C-alpha cells in the first residue's frame, strides 16, 4: 500500500503532544493568566454538531489552546454488542454515524462475512455499492450544508442540501422501510430485494442530483466570502495526517492518495471506473471541494452500477437468521465510509455473541488533530474547521 502514499513516509512527524492540564483558576470574568479567556464551547452550542465540547483558550479572538471533550453521547455500543447476538448488533450500527447507516451496515456485515466466509451474491454486491454511494451523496451533501451553516449562511445551502437528501432518503425508505436507520444489510447479502421500479426512481433521482451539484457549485464555490473564509484555514499537513491515521476525504484533501475503494477493492469496486480527487493544500476549502468532487465521482459510480446490476438472489443461501453462531476466530472488515475508514474488529468464540467487538470510528480518529489545525486560528475558524472534519457524535462517542 505504501506505493499509494504520495506523501513522505509516515512516522517523521507526530501530532503535537497535548497538554491537557486544568488551567489556572480563572477570575470572575473567566480570564486566565492575564489576557487569555477560557471559553467552553459546548456541549450545548449551536455549532458543535451534537453534544461535543471544545474547551478553548482565547487570546482575543485567537485560539491558543483547544481541548476536545467528548463522551456525552456514550451509549456503550461495543459492550452491548458483546452481550447480544451478531444480528442484533446490526441495527445498533445504524446509530453509530446516523447519517450513513448503509455504510455502517456494510462494514459490519463485511467483517462478519470475513469471520464466517459467507459470500454475498452478485446482485447483493451491486445493491450494496448503490446504497453505499447514495449514502456518500447524502453525507457529503449534509456536510456541505452544515459547513456553510457554520460559516453563517443562514440555512439556505443547508435547505437546498436537505431537499436533495430527502430524495435519497425517500429511496432508502421505499427500499428498507426506514429513512435513516436502514438496518438493511445482512450477513451474506441484503435483507429485501429492490422493490419494483426502484432502479428507475434511483436513476431519475440521480439526474436531479447532477443538476443540483451544478447549481450548488455555482451558488457557493465561487462565492468570495466562502473562498476567503476557508482557504488557508485549518491546514493539515500530509505528514501529520498520515501519522495521526486520518482517513477519508480529510486525508485526501491533504494530498494523500488513499481510498479504500481503490486500495482494498472490497465488494466489487474494482469493476467501476471512478477517480479519486486529491487536494494540494489540506485546508478547509480543499476538504469542502474534495467532498464536492467525490460526489461527482459517486454519481459516476452509481450510473455504472445502476446500468450493470444483474438479477438473481440477494442472500447467500448458507446464511441463516436464527441460531447464527460463527466458528471461533477473528476478523477485521473495513470500508471507505463517507467519513473515512470504518472498521469492525470481531473475535468469535463460537457462541451467538461476539467475544470482542470493536469499532474503528473515522469521526473520532479524524477529530484527534483538531487542536493542531485550530491553533493560531480564530474562534470563527475553529468552528468551521470542526465542521470540515465532519464528525457525527454518535460515532465519536459510540
Amino acid at each position: 500500500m505504501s506505493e499509494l502514499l504520495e506523501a513522505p513516509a509516515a512516522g517523521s512527524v507526530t501530532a503535537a503532544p497535548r497538554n491537557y492540564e486544568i488551567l489556572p483558576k480563572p477570575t470572575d470574568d473567566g480570564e486566565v493568566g492575564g489576557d487569555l479567556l477560557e471559553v467552553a464551547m459546548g456541549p450545548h452550542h449551536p455549532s458543535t454538531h451534537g453534544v461535543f465540547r471544545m474547551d478553548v483558550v482565547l487570546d482575543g479572538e485567537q485560539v491558543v489552546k483547544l481541548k476536545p471533550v467528548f463522551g456525552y453521547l456514550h451509549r456503550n455500543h461495543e459492550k452491548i454488542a458483546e452481550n447480544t447476538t451478531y444480528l442484533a448488533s446490526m441495527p445498533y450500527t445504524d446509530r453509530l454515524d446516523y447519517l450513513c447507516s448503509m455504510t455502517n451496515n456494510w462494514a459490519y456485515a463485511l467483517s462478519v462475512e470475513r469471520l464466517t466466509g459467507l459470500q454475498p451474491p452478485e446482485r447483493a454486491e451491486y445493491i450494496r455499492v448503490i446504497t453505499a454511494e447514495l449514502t456518500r451523496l447524502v453525507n457529503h451533501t449534509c456536510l456541505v450544508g452544515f459547513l456553510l451553516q457554520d460559516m453563517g449562511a443562514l440555512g439556505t445551502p443547508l435547505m437546498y442540501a436537505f431537499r436533495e437528501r430527502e430524495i435519497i432518503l425517500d429511496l432508502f425508505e421505499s427500499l428498507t422501510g426506514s429513512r435513516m436507520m436502514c438496518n438493511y444489510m445482512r450477513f451474506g447479502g441484503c435483507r429485501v430485494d429492490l422493490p419494483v421500479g426502484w432502479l428507475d426512481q434511483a436513476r431519475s433521482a440521480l439526474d436531479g442530483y447532477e443538476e443540483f451539484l451544478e447549481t450548488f457549485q455555482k451558488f457557493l464555490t465561487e462565492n468570495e466570502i466562502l473562498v476567503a473564509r476557508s482557504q488557508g484555514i485549518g491546514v493539515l499537513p500530509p505528514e501529520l495526517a498520515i501519522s495521526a491515521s486520518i482517513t477519508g476525504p480529510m486525508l485526501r484533501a491533504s494530498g494523500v492518495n488513499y481510498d479504500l475503494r481503490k486500495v482494498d477493492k472490497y465488494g466489487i469496486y474494482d469493476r467501476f471506473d471512478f477517480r479519486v480527487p486529491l487536494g494540494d493544500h489540506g485546508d478547509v476549502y480543499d476538504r469542502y471541494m474534495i467532498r464536492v468532487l467525490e460526489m461527482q465521482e459517486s454519481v459516476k459510480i452509481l450510473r455504472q452500477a445502476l446500468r450493470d446490476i444483474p438479477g438473481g438472489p440477494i442472500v447467500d443461501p448458507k446464511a441463516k437468521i436464527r441460531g447464527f453462531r460463527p466458528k471461533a476466530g477473528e476478523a477485521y472488515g473495513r470500508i471507505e465510509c463517507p467519513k473515512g475508514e470504518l472498521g469492525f474488529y470481531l473475535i468469535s468464540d463460537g457462541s451467538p455473541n461476539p467475544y470482542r467487538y470493536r469499532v474503528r470510528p473515522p469521526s473520532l480518529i479524524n477529530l484527534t488533530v483538531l487542536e493542531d489545525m485550530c491553533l493560531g486560528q480564530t474562534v470563527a475558524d475553529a468552528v468551521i474547521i470542526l465542521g470540515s472534519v465532519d464528525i457525527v457524535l454518535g460515532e465519536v462517542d459510540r
Partner: protein
Amino acid sequence: MLGEGIIKGMAETARNFFGSYHDADRMTTVQFPEDRIPAKENARNFPFLVFDGEDPAKGLRCVACQICEKECPPKCIYIVKDTVKKPDYIGKLQFQPRVFDIDVSVCMSCQICVEVCPFEAIKMDTDYEFGTADRFGGLLLNKQRLAKPNTYYRKIHATEAAEVDERLAAEKAKAEAKAKADAEAKARAAATAAAAKATPTPVVSPTAPAIAPAPAK
C-alpha cells in the same frame, strides 16, 4: 474575485425565490396534519401482532415462542406464556402469550423481531401517531393494542402480505394434507387395529413448536 461570485449566488437565490412561486416541484413541504405522505410499502415503525379471522383472542398467530423477546436488540418485548394450549389457525394446539408487551419508547423499529419470527406472527406497522400524555402506560403496548387483523396487514404491506398469505396457505394445505393423511393412516391403523383387535393407540399430539421456548430467566 471582485464580487462576481456573490452576485452569481444572489442570482441563484433569486431564481429559487421566484421559482418557488410558479414551480410546485421546488416546494417539497408537506403540511403535516392536513396532508400526509402516503406510507411507503416497505415502511416500518413499530411491530404489531397479526391475527387471522375476527377474534384476536382466537386467531393470534403468536405462539409465545419468545424468540423475538430474545433477539430484540433493545429488549423491549416482554412475553409471558399461557399455561393452557389453544388451537391456532391451522387448528393445531399451541401456547399463546398471556402477556405480550412492547415498550415503544424503547423499541428502535429495527424489524429484527419480524425477521426472526418463524410464524409470521409479528409484523411492522406504519402507524406513527403514538403521542400520549401518559409516558409509561401510554407507550407500553399490550396484547390487545398490538393485535391487528390480517386484513390490516394486507392493507399496509400488500405485496409482502400476499407472499406471506401464500406461504401460510401452502403450509396450511400441507398441514391439512398431512392431517388428512394422518387421519387416514389413523383410520387405517384403527381399522387394522380393529381388525387385529389390538389395544387402542394414544391420540397423536400436535407437533411441538419448531424451536423450544426460552428457558426462564
